[in-house]
Each structure stands twice: as structure tokens, then as C-alpha cells.
């Protein structure tokens, strides 16, 4: 069974202790545990310099066929991305596969008044948006914001990364109400969370993601291999859902 990992990072890390540091090492580990492709951002785009980090992710993907580039964005399209046209050009030229947001660490909110221009663009592109529940400065400010985002922009697949094992009372009702709300498998470790979500809300809500190299990827490969769900649902989670979202992206050129 093939796996596509929606949640991977390259680059340096403040606390340092990552078990793999380069794209070559990442590809080696991916081959070891059976991950065929990884969506990667560069940590500079998150923790240092946005443009440099996005360029680094693109460059890594150009040099490593198992990697696909993720772009970190903020609400300031004009000032930080050359306007809507500049952002679209970067996305199309480099075949960006997802956009990742860090609202707490980058100092903005997910309220529509703040991110409407960005999300209008992402909605036009049908671009998957990845939002971390594990930023440096803390978890999501508010699941309310996330819910309103899902309702306001139903054409944007919104993926909450690393929701953790304590979030069921928030994310279950969210999945029930919002077809475009997804989570990844990193730290989806509560007892039978995978099985329950599949049974109650559908396997379409879960995307395979490992948060490597922050977390050990093989663990999550195994979690799906051993999951008490049908083979069809395993394949959806492992690669089918991500593949489907990717095919829906509307690159203007």
C-alpha cells in the first residue's frame, strides 16, 4: 500500500533534536517505511524568513522527486507575496500542493475579516490549507474560528494538522458539520480514534500525515496498516484522500 504524507518539514529546528535533517535523509526514511511522497515545507518559512523558506521548499522538491512543495502564507498578499498575481504565479510555476498557515506564530487570526483576501484566492484555487494545532506559541486560539472558516469557505479543504489525542470533543462535531474539514494522522493516537472517525464521519476526513521529522513516521504508517477498518478505507487514508484533493486544485496555468 502506498502512503502520501501531507505533513512533513525540512530545515533546521530550534530545539535541534531531529533524527533526520536533510532531504536525502528524509527520502531514505520514507523509502524505509513505505512512504512514496511527502508534502514538505521548510522551517525557515515558519520560524525565520517566509520567502527564503518557501523558496527552499520549492528547491528541495525540484531536487528530490519524492517531495512536493508546500507554501507557507499569511493574510498579507500584497506585501508578502506580490499581490494576488504574484501569489498565483508562485503557486503555478512551482506546482505548490498545499498552503500551510501558522496564525499564532505569525501574528494573525483566522477570522474572516483578517484572512478573507487569502481565502478567496485559496477558494478559487481549491487549494488545501494546512493549519497546525501545535505551533510554538500554543494550540489553536479557537476552534470557533476554524469552524467559521470551514463554513465560510466550503470549497477550501481545511486540514487540521496534529490534532492530538485530546481533541475529540471539538473535532468530532466539526467533522459532522463540515464536509471540507479534515485532520491528519499525526498524533491521532486516542484509542480507536481512526476507527471511530471512519465509522461515524467517513474515512474522507482523515489524511495520512506524520509531522516528520518531528515525530517518527513509521509509527503512523503502522497505525494505518493495523487499523481495524476496511482495506478500502485504509487506502483512502494512506493516499487516496490526499490524491483526490490534489486533483481538485485549479491551477490557472
Amino acid at each position, binding site marked *: 500500500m502506498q502512503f502520501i504524507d501531507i505533513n512533513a518539514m525540512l530545515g533546521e*529546528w530550534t*530545539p535541534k*533534536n*531531529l*533524527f533526520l535533517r536533510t532531504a536525502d535523509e528524509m527520502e531514505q526514511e520514507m523509502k*524505509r*517505511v*513505505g512512504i512514496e511522497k511527502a508534502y514538505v515545507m521548510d522551517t525557515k518559512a515558519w520560524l525565520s524568513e517566509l520567502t527564503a523558506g518557501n523558496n527552499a521548499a520549492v528547491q528541495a522538491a525540484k531536487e528530490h522527486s519524492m517531495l512536493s512543495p508546500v507554501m507557507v502564507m499569511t493574510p498579507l498578499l500584497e506585501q508578502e507575496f506580490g499581490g494576488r498575481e504574484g501569489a498565483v504565479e508562485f503557486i503555478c510555476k512551482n506546482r505548490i500542493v498545499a498552503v500551510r498557515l501558522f496564525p499564532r506564530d505569525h501574528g494573525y487570526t483566522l477570522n474572516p475579516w483578517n484572512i478573507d483576501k487569502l481565502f478567496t484566492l485559496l477558494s478559487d484555487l481549491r487549494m488545501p490549507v494546512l493549519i497546525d494545532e*501545535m505551533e510554538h506559541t500554543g494550540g489553536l486560539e479557537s476552534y470557533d474560528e476554524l469552524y467559521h472558516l470551514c463554513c465560510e469557505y466550503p470549497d477550501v479543504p481545511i486540514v487540521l494538522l496534529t490534532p*492530538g*489525542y*485530546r*481533541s*475529540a*470533543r471539538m473535532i*468530532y462535531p466539526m467533522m459532522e458539520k463540515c464536509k471540507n474539514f479534515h485532520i491528519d494522522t499525526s*498524533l491521532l*493516537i*486516542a*484509542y*480507536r*480514534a*481512526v*476507527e*471511530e472517525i471512519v465509522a461515524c464521519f467517513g474515512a474522507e476526513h482523515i489524511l495520512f500525515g506524520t509531522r516528520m*521529522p*518531528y*515525530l*517518527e513516521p*513509521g*509509527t*503512523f*504508517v*503502522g*497505525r494505518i*496498516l*493495523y*487499523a*481495524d477498518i476496511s482495506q478500502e478505507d485504509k487506502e483512502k487514508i494512506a493516499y487516496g484522500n490526499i490524491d483526490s484533493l490534489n486533483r481538485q486544485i485549479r491551477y490557472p496555468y
Partner: protein
Amino acid sequence: MAQQIFERAMKGEIFPELRIIDAHCHLGTGHEFYHAPADIDQMIREADSMGVEKLCIAPEAGIECDYKYGNELMLDSIRRYPNRVYGYLCLNPFHEDEIEEMFDTYYPVEQVVGVKIHPSGHRARIDCEGYRKIFQQVEKRGGFVLSHTWGDFDPFCNLTLCEEVMGRFPKVSFILAHSGGTVESVKKAIRLVNAYPNIYLDTCGFDITEHCINELVDQCPFEKIIFGTDFPYHDLRYGMTRILFADLDDSQKAGLLHENFANLLKKNPKK
């Protein structure tokens, strides 16, 4: 490096021949967050599905407000599955006058192997008088202590406090549950297991950090690493795949999954 376990795990096989013991389990549900219900029948079914021979349980109730109810659940589980379940006696340090009676009631049961304490859950510092009395009982009666631990900001069982206390009871073996939990505390936990013969650590719950299993194996005395999953807080499958899919050889995986805890039991029998 022998990698048959990994290759078989990639096919979804299970490993009953390894006689896996999960040294850190609970039972039932708690209040802080939702997970799927797990009575002992369900837990044994899950254990069977993953080839796990024994579960060592401290019911969630035992580390929350009604520790006696938790111990009743633990004993009931042992009675129903005497060959599959080990139990931890759960104790609330604020009920000092009940400590000896709890030991008298539960410690004679063969499958009760030690004590589980949860200072954060009971909101009691690990260096309080009640815990001191509990450790004195373990010193006298044998067994060992599995203690919840967490990061520096935890006022009840951060590793600085744990070191002070555990250093004062060198004849009592302590397992640092969650290995300190946070990025910095796992580093401390590694230092403690190297420095103190009576301190061990387990493999669950510090998953949120970037420390991986290989790092523990490289930096700790191997026999001090105890396999535990925190089942059913965490899914048993996840806890196991952390070992099965690690970049270790088969003998190391076998050691982690069975031998290390089996040897800990032999070294810490009840008297």
C-alpha cells in the same frame, strides 16, 4: 541488522511469540477528554488483535477522584483474566491513614506487581508525606512504583522533584512514566536513568516531542527502557508501532517488548 520484525509488521502481522507485556495501561475512561470506551473485555480483545500477552493496568478511576473504586476495577480485571492482567495498586497520598490497609488488601494478590501514583492527577507533590509513606511500604513489601512524570512547569511531578525523592529511596525501583513528557524533561529522564540504578523510564506519552525511540536506546542503559503504551488513553496499536517500526534490530525490539519488564519484575518481587 536483523529486520524480520519490521518486514512482518509492514505486512500487518502480529507477534505472539514475543510475549509482549505492556507495562503502562489504564482501564475505563477519564474526564479530561474523550476516547472510545474500554472495559477489560474490550482491552483483552485489542491485546489479542495485536498479539500482546499481558496488560499492566491502573484504572483511570484510580488516578482520579475515587482511587478505591479504581482498585476494585483492577482486582475485578485480574479475577476475570488472571493470566493476562497485572495490576497496579493506586493510592491517593491525601488518604494517609488508608495506605497500609490498601497494601494489606491488594498486595497479597499475586498479579498486583507494584504501585501506580499520579501526582498531577491527585494534585499532590511527589515529595509529600503521603507519598513518602507509600514508598516506605514498597521498600518494606517489595514491588516497584510507576509514577506519572511531566515537564518543569508541572508542580507535582517534574523531574527535579522526582530526582530528589527517588534518590532518597534507592531500594525502591521507579519507572518514570512518560519519561518526563516534554522536550527538556526527556533529556533529564535520560540523565536520571544513567545516574541512578533504581530509576527506569517508559516509552509512552512523550510522543509529542522530537525524541525518538532510537535516541533512548542509544543513550540509556537498554534494560532501563520499559515498554508501555498508555492504552486506552492512547491506542495500543500506536504504542506498538512505535517499537515495531523503529529502526532497531529484532533483538532490541524483543527486549523492549518483553524482556526488560520481565527482568524488572524478577528484580523487584514482592516480599
